[in-house]
């Protein structure tokens, strides 16, 4: 069924069209919306686009980084300042998908996809959203929790603090390398102060319907040095609060079995 395509010059106009029309979806890089159309998804009647250049800007203000929602993973890889996000962008798709897929769109990618969102969750990112009534900043956790209701809102950008040194860690486990759907994806922000972890954030992909924080594992390591005892405590709590999917990449049982192994490797920096 043909859909109506509406293209706007500003994100504001696109946001109002998106919020005022039922069954409208915003088209970023196309890897989610065009896929749905190719599969004959009749729930989409209008495709909204914006050519607003502000959506593809990357801003560096002191220690805070703001990435426009329309920035592609290829662009992320081309920015030396975003080196800490390069392992994340590299783990997504092949070159063509990275030339198309966007940072904003990844927030909506269904499990087991959405690896960039997993990283942003660990980085405690803020999502800037334009609704029918103006723009607001939402913590990524809140955004993801209400993701299914966010279809009528337009994501403008995501922002986060640049992590210090080795504080940010990421790994994606997949059967096919260098590209493949996630068995489990892990990201962690482990800032240390005087040899102890202060403000630990650990997040998982493919361990629930959307990226989730491993709060029990975070508590196990918070305020402690990364040593055998604290790592063992975090690993023991690794599956708490998760409900992994059964899909063609892995069973829920398998994901629960291996998440602790990969969490241990992530925390100890082991390959």
């Amino acid at each position, binding site marked *: 069924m043909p859909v109506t395509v509406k293209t706007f010059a500003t994100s504001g106009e696109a946001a109002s069209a998106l919020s005022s029309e039922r069954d409208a979806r915003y088209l970023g890089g196309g*890897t989610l919306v065009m896929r749905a159309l190719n599969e004959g998804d009749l729930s989409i009647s209008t495709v909204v686009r914006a050519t607003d250049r502000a959506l593809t800007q990357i801003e560096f203000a002191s220690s805070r980084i703001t990435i426009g929602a329309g920035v592609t993973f290829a662009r992320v890889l081309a920015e030396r300042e975003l080196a800490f996000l390069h392992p994340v962008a590299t783990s997504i798709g092949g070159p063509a998908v990275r*030339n198309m897929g966007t940072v904003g769109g990844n927030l909506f990618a269904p499990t087991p996809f959405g690896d960039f969102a997993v990283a942003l969750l660990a980085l405690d990112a803020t999502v800037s959203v334009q609704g029918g009534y103006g723009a607001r900043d939402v913590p990524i956790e809140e955004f993801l929790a209400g993701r299914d209701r966010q279809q009528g809102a337009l994501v403008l950008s995501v922002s986060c603090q640049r992590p210090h040194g080795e504080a940010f860690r990421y790994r994606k486990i997949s059967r096919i390398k260098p590209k493949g759907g996630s068995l489990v994806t892990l990201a962690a922000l482990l800032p240390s102060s005087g040899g102890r972890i202060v403000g630990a954030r650990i997040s998982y992909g493919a361990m629930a319907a959307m990226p989730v924080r491993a709060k029990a594992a975070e508590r196990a390591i918070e305020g402690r040095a990364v040593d055998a005892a604290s790592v063992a405590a975090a690993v023991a709590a690794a599956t708490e609060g998760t409900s992994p999917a059964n899909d063609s990449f892995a069973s829920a049982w398998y994901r629960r079995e291996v998440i602790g192994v990969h969490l241990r490797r992530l925390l100890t920096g082991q390959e």
Partner: protein
Amino acid sequence: MTKTALQFRHNDRDVAVFVDGGASLLGTLRDLVGDMTPKFGCGQGGCGACTVLIDGEAHLSCLTLAVTVEGRAVETLDGLKDGANLHPLQRAFMEHFAAQCGYCTPGMLMAAKALLDHNPSPTRADVVNAIAGNICRCTGYEPIINAVLAAASGGRARA
């Protein structure tokens, strides 16, 4: 449903077509422009058979909304050869038995061209990364990787 006028460069010539809302670039190339070289594989971004270059960068034409290429340059396998002369990549694919059933070949060739256009002397790892989004169920990839490397060194020898 009204159609939208769309103009773009297709392999160094201008084309103008009327597309339905929501039409993909792949459907537009095959059904309206008559270029059958990009293939429909999965329609999900998983196989790479529909890979084309848009302004020199590899894109999946099945996931590209046709109207987004307005005024842009689209390159497909159909534009690779020069008259009767095959492109060095095409010759290398023949010489290294890099095609069996041939369905993935147009996408493989365009992904490889995107690589060589940016990086004329890639390493083996570069080639593996460049074709990571393209699935081949026949050759097992080794002949394809060898062909791309051969085309790269062939190009250097001529330069």
